[in-house]
């Protein structure tokens, strides 16, 4: 109704031009990238010498046109002016897309501006630059917790793995500049190798709706995007310098962006971070330091019609792991749990001693795209990743200087993707992916946790989007993936027989060549092929201009990862033996979700609901205790069950008074196995409230106080053991299951921005985390058995935009 009314208003001017012409052109001006309507675009009709303006929904209507050519010149602030010629032979509908630059600038400089979703109907939340910058000193996993329903599974405080609706590791895909991160992501102690500072925008997509990225995203997808390319002559940069009292750490990051009107551009970015031992309220957390260096460079040419990009990123992290968490056997673990305090407390130090991790990740990407008129856009991308992971343990003698785990994972990926968007009411996207991966594990004097393997992936996908009318949009997709794992692994013959592989897998044993003797080992060459189908269908229905409903169903399928197939050994910080299983099937998830969203100028609400049924869900379960000369170790084996997870995530933001805002994020999740036993490591109910005062007239000053309330997890599987102390005959309980009590933390954050010149701004941010120095332990921190979490932390951060 509004649309017709506005069109009518606009065309009062054009009425006098009545000839013997009666054709009507309806039009719509949209952003080229995401199809958001462009309001108040200036449309010049050359033949009529008239100007009209697109309405609030980007639409316009030109009536009483004659047959023949009509030329429109469309311009908008921040957009490249576009001239288009339409041959009128009857009433017509035309969508005009503009390259919208100004919003890209907004993303960098202005808070609360429009940002770009990656999906249309999935449960997606976008973290903007301003939010990401608050986490400059921290990691990706920390920043993602801004999103309701996202938590993390930690090993200490420097290894933070994101968890979406209770799922993590191989069940999440992480894309860095459109490259799927391949960095031994199966491991809970393997944090994503991303420098948070290289991100300009991060999208969290819950569930497997974004099929173009992969069919195995049972938990979700995290899409990290660097800054968008601006086609104008400009040079700008940003430097952030921060310091914190806890861990006596600093962080420095700097980026510089140069672009030309011709479309050429170059971006460089680098970061340095270091901290020493952190402090819990009552003691030092000895050996918890970190050293991190990262660097990325991006160059290319980007025009509307075509473009290319070369991208390289490097990150090196050296992460110390709490000394007290290195334990010899299950008795040490019992002692550690019962003592309630770490056994090793030393004076503060920046030293990084064993146990520690050293991980280096290189990513090289080349991309080319070309847009074909009336067809769409073709993308071709090649990327190469090299991930080297070294894990050092406390070992005897010279071996102490050698990594106990040494893995080099190399991945080549080729991606061809075609976007058919000539008809904006019915878009298609299809693509082909081919990937080759090689894992190399040299001899380290310890049995390999993950064997040498080669992996081949091939995927095809088709996604489509239909805009049925102004209110309803439907999208759907289908994907097929083929995976082949070809491994070479030495098994202990005793283990091979114990697993029953001698009966089921006798044909994969590689006999030793002449002159070779494998002794008590045998060499196996397992080759597994997996065929996976995934699909999704979703819809978005706009109830009115303020509220909408999303509904989505997805089917996703994840083949077992190398750890689930091949794990075979002692896990030191957990004092347990983890055993994979060659017989595992892919797990298949069916997820349905719905979201209600309401947005107006001072009130925003988003409520997500989901139900995820995962058949053949792979998980580790304790099955017994193994005795050795080193003492007893619980044995955890990968098993499969039909799991179900469901829950709700709520985000509310309300400007309840002038300059005051209240924000709440709350999430509740439940997970059960086929016997209705709770799943392990599920986040407990948690709710975060913050009240923020902001005054734009006073140096953009803002101050906020945040309450983070995490409840005790009262549903957990009982994986406790009763062990007999052999020397005393006493029975002792190994309580590894009971979650720690709930906790409530208060944080404070304030900032102000000062203009040093027209183009230079200095932002000063002061924060206090855990204001009351509360002692607590987090159920989802793997080191919770050994020590309390971090105490009070004062942070100061200076950001200079120039």
């Amino acid at each position, binding site marked *: 109704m509004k649309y017709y009314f506005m069109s009518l208003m606009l065309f009062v001017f054009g009425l006098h031009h009545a000839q013997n012409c009666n054709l009507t052109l309806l039009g719509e001006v949209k952003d080229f990238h995401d199809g958001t309507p462009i309001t108040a675009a200036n449309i010049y009709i050359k033949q009529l010498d008239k100007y009209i303006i697109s309405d609030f929904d980007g639409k316009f209507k030109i009536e009483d046109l004659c047959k023949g050519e009509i030329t429109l010149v469309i311009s908008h602030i921040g957009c490249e002016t576009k001239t288009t010629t339409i041959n009128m032979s009857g009433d017509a509908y035309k969508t005009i897309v503009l390259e919208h630059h100004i919003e890209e600038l907004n993303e960098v400089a202005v808070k609360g501006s429009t940002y770009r979703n990656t999906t249309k109907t999935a449960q997606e939340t976008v973290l903007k630059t301003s939010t990401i910058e608050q986490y400059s000193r921290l990691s990706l996993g920390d920043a993602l917790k801004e999103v309701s329903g996202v938590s993390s599974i930690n090993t200490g405080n420097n290894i933070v793995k994101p968890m979406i609706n209770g799922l993590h590791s191989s069940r999440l895909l992480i894309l860095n500049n459109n490259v799927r991160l391949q960095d031994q992501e199966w491991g809970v102690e393997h944090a994503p190798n991303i420098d948070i500072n290289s991100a300009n925008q991060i999208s969290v997509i819950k569930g497997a709706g974004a099929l173009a990225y992969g069919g195995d995203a049972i938990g979700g997808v995290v899409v990290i995007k660097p800054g968008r390319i601006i086609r104008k002559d400009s040079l700008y940069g940003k430097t952030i310098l921060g310091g914190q009292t806890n861990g006596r750490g600093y962080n420095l990051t700097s980026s510089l962006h140069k672009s030309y009107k011709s479309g050429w551009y170059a971006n460089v970015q680098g970061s340095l971070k270091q901290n020493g031992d952190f402090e819990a309220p009552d003691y030092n957390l000895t050996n918890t330091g970190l050293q991190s260096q990262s660097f990325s460079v991006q160059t290319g040419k980007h025009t509307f019609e075509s473009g290319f990009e070369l991208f390289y990123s490097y990150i090196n992290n050296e992460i110390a792991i709490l000394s007290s968490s290195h334990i010899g056997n299950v008795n040490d673990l019992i002692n550690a749990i019962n003592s309630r305090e770490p056994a090793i407390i030393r004076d503060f130090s920046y030293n990084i001693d064993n146990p520690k991790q050293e991980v280096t990740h290189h990513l090289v990407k080349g991309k080319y795209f070309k847009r074909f008129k009336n067809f769409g856009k073709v993308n071709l991308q090649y990327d*190469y990743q090299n991930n080297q992971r070294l894990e050092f343990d406390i070992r005897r003698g010279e071996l102490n200087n050698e990594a106990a785990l040494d893995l080099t994972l190399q991945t080549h990926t080729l991606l061809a993707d075609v976007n058919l968007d000539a008809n904006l009411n019915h878009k298609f996207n299809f693509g082909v992916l081919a990937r080759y991966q090689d894992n190399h594990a040299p001899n380290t004097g310890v049995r390999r946790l993950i064997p040498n393997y080669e992996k081949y992936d091939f995927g095809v996908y088709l996604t489509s989007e239909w805009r049925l009318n102004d209110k309803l949009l439907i999208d759907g997709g289908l994907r097929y993936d083929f995976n082949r794992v070809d491994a070479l692994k030495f098994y202990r013959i005793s283990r091979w027989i114990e697993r029953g592989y001698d009966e089921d897998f006798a044909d994969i044993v590689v006999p030793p060549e002449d002159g070779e003797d494998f002794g008590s080992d045998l060499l196996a060459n397992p080759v597994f092929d997996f065929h996976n189908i995934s699909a999704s269908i979703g819809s978005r229905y706009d109830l009115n201009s303020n509220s909408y409903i999303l509904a989505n169903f997805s089917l996703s399928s994840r083949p077992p990862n190398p750890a689930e197939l091949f794990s075979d050994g002692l896990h030191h910080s957990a004092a347990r033996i983890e055993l994979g299983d060659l017989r595992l099937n892919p797990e298949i998830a069916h997820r349905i979700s719905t979201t209600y969203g309401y947005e107006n100028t001072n009130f925003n609400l988003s409520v997500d609901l989901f139900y995820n049924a995962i058949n053949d869900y792979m998980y580790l379960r304790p099955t017994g205790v193994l005795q050795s000369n080193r003492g007893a170790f619980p044995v955890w084996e990968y098993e499969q069950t039909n799991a179900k997870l469901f829950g709700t995530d709520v985000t509310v933001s309300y400007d309840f008074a002038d300059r005051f805002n209240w924000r709440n994020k709350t999430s509740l999740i439940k997970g059960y196995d086929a016997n209705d036993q709770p799943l392990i490591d599920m986040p407990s109910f948690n709710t975060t409230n913050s009240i923020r005062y902001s005054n734009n007239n006073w140096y953009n000053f803002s101050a906020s106080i945040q309450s983070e309330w995490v409840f005790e997890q009262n549903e957990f599987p009982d994986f406790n053991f009763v062990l007999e102390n052999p020397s005393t005959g006493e029975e002792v309980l190994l309580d590894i299951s009971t979650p720690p009590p709930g906790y409530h933390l208060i944080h404070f954050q304030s900032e102000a921005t000062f203009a040093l010149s027209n183009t230079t701004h200095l932002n000063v941010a002061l924060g206090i985390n855990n204001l009351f120095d509360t002692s607590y332990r987090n159920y989802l921190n793997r080191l919770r058995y050994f020590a309390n979490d971090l105490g009070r932390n004062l942070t100061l951060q200076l950001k200079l935009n120039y």
Partner: protein
Amino acid sequence: MNTNKTNFKTMKINYINSNFMKTSKFLLSAILCLTVLVSCSDDDDTPSQPNEEEVITNVTLTFTNDADATDIVVLLSVDADGEDGPLAPVQTITGNFTAGATYTATVNLFNAIENEDITVEVTDEEPDEHFFVYAINGLDITLTRSANDVVRTDGNKLGFETTWVANTASTGSLTIQLFHESESVDDSNEFGIQSGGSADVDITFTGVDIQ
């Protein structure tokens, strides 16, 4: 990788002319590119067999009667496939203690998988990072760390060589533990006390007899 970059450039030249037909060629080249890529990859040779340098498969405690060199008690624990292999350690006790006699005991640590004696790594190379702790249950036996025992830099005796006085006839268990990287050790209790270390050896021999 170089190969791929070259292909990449060629492709760009091919597609300067925008027309639909080229799209299929585009995809074709993509697949071609992969073929090159896979064939380029170095086929992995057979990995080397893991050498398990840290495993202690055989732990032997040998007690010799100070007054009678033929009166020997041997406690042996053999864990043939190491700490993470499924086989449980097999413990054998050879001989009985004689009530009233004094025995000197030494420890031997051996890796049968790599055929390597590990004892010297503990006693000679890294005594400061190790400490033996003993425990008894039900046995009437007295333990002291020998005068000839290895002494750590901090003055504590390692517990490698020990003196045992078998008092009265009894049956019970004897536990030997070897700790690595202890935060503190104390030999003022002759059995030994430590904190913060991780266990390299933790074995309990049951059915030890004093007759």
